[in-house]
């Protein structure tokens, strides 16, 4: 298993430079953008978990919001009950979501396309009501997830949002670096084989079901991490933060990014954050009626989604790559 090819070093350096650039960026843009940046980083992790699942292992989940919830609650419980440090909360979130993902994945491996979609959809619909059944989950108002103030060594003017942004970006960079190594490894090739030629893969000695469960588990772990990041940016975790529309939004982001390439993940993440704001200012500029103003964001997201699926189904990155090859 050649995990570390020479080109890995340069890729690693690429990630380091990206990190340095983000630090520079966080010092130049205003606080709102820094906050949105943290949300973008969260979406990067969440969308990549969908890309791994759908683009690489060929499974469909409409209920990833539920796995984000597992991660968010896991992190908050660790923080509130054991006063765990942030990194441990995140690790706990990953493990807890991965555990549930493995269980779900074991079921999912038996199901094909629409049946899996239905099951995950039912999970996303059913999950929020659980939080109200158990007192330690805090009911509808949820739990507080407070990661604390930024360290004093960063200076007094260092804002809370910049701290969120740094943590979220670092987390996203590390997990993306790890994920792309994973996808280039034997596992990545196995998943691709299973997705494109599952019968051939089986004949070639690949354990199809096991490979699918593994993909689901890792995807769930990433989703859990995203859930912890999401809870961090809103400082709380509650059932309402993980509605069905979140699951749909993540699927949307994955398609806009292009499900087959991890490289486009930032496009989907930025789009999800930017669209409502663009719609807002657009509506204000053209002085739209109230009905138009309220409905414009939904219209833009849906329209963009449809255009993407119809005309650049494999995402912008893949599209450019194909055009270059022609």
């Amino acid at each position, binding site marked *: 298993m050649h995990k570390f090819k020479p080109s890995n070093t340069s890729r690693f350096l690429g990630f380091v430079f990206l990190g340095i650039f983000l630090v520079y960026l966080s010092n130049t843009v205003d606080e709102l953008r820094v906050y949105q940046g943290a949300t973008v980083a969260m979406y990067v992790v969440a969308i990549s978990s969908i890309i791994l699942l759908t683009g690489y292992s060929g499974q469909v989940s409409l209920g990833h919001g539920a796995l984000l919830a597992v991660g968010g609650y896991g992190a908050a419980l660790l923080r509130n009950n054991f006063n765990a440090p942030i990194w441990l909360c995140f690790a706990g979130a990953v493990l807890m979501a991965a555990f549930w993902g493995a269980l779900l994945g074991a079921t999912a491996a038996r199901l*094909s396309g629409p049946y899996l979609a239905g099951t995950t959809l039912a999970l996303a619909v059913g999950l929020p009501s659980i939080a109200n059944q158990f007192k330690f989950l805090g009911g509808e108002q949820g739990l507080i997830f407070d990661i604390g103030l930024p360290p004093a060594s960063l200076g007094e003017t260092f804002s809370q949002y910049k701290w969120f942004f740094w943590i979220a970006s670092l987390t996203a960079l590390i997990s993306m670096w790890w994920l792309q190594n994973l996808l280039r490894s034997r596992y990545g090739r196995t998943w691709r084989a299973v997705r494109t030629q599952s019968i051939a893969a089986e004949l070639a000695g690949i354990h199809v079901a096991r490979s699918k469960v593994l993909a689901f588990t890792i995807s769930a772990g990433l989703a859990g991490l995203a859930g912890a990041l999401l809870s961090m940016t809103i400082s709380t975790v509650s059932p309402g933060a993980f509605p069905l529309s979140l699951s749909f939004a993540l699927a949307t982001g994955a398609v806009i990014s292009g499900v087959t390439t991890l490289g486009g993940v930032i496009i989907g993440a930025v789009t999800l954050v930017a669209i409502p704001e663009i719609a807002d200012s657009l509506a204000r500029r053209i002085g739209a009626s109230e009905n138009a103003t309220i409905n414009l964001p939904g219209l833009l997201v849906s329209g963009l989604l449809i255009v993407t699926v119809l005309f650049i189904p494999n995402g912008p990155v893949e599209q450019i790559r194909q055009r270059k090859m022609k």
Partner: protein
Amino acid sequence: MFQIFNTFLIGVTAGSIYALMAISMVLVWRSTRVVNFAQAGMALLSTYFGYEVIHQVGSYWLALPIAMISGAIVAAVIELVFMRLLLKHSSQGAIASIAPIIATLGLLGLIKSMIGYFWGNQDVSIESPLSNVGFTLGTQTLALSPMKLFILIVVSILVIALTFVFQRTNLGLALRASAYAPEISRLAGIKVDLVRTFGWAVAGAAGGAAGMLQTANGNGALSPDSLEFSLLLAFGFISAVIGGLDSLLGAVLGALLLGLVLAFVLTYIGGSLVFITAFVLLLVVLLIRPAGIISQRAGRRA
């Protein structure tokens, strides 16, 4: 004893509402192999057309067929301009498994925003044409009213008529053939594209009926953000999956099973278990039969 009987009636009538939605999902799945999440939006839009008719003319009985016809037209148009493009561009590679789902989700959002733009985001209301008061049996009131009886009759007629069309006519054969093997069907002289559009149109009409009936049976309120329609979609889809997605009869059985299980769980176990019960029921059914109650072939690979 009477409580058991009424709970049974509640389960059956609720199931018949899910069944209408499940039927339209199955019709689309059978004709184009697409799980149509826009179904709720399409049903909502046709119900708004129905509302407009009631608003202008004042007759529910005129509004119901018009809603069904407009539902059929909307569905046919969507299939013609939209799903064909989709099949052309996104039927290959990793995207193929998720593209139809995502595209129809996009469509759902698009339809909702457009309804919000034209009719506003606030509730409008539809009056029920028949009495909602239950029939009386001795001193007891049944959980069955003229309106609910009407719904049961409409669902039965639809299921029987559609089953007949699918199983006993050339059109039905063409529908099934073009979904399973479009290329071979084309060689056999079947106008595959036309047949698919027809499948969508029938589904659209069924969705329109579901919307009009559910609204009249429920609280009568209608809005682009209607919780009723989102849940109708979720429960209709869950019913269809339980039933096996390929079978009309399966969809109806799945819907009735879901309706009955929910009614009995809510009455005799716990009042707040609705959503989790639906999930557990789906999981249990799929663990026993991974392709639903009435599956065409065991272990089918989609």
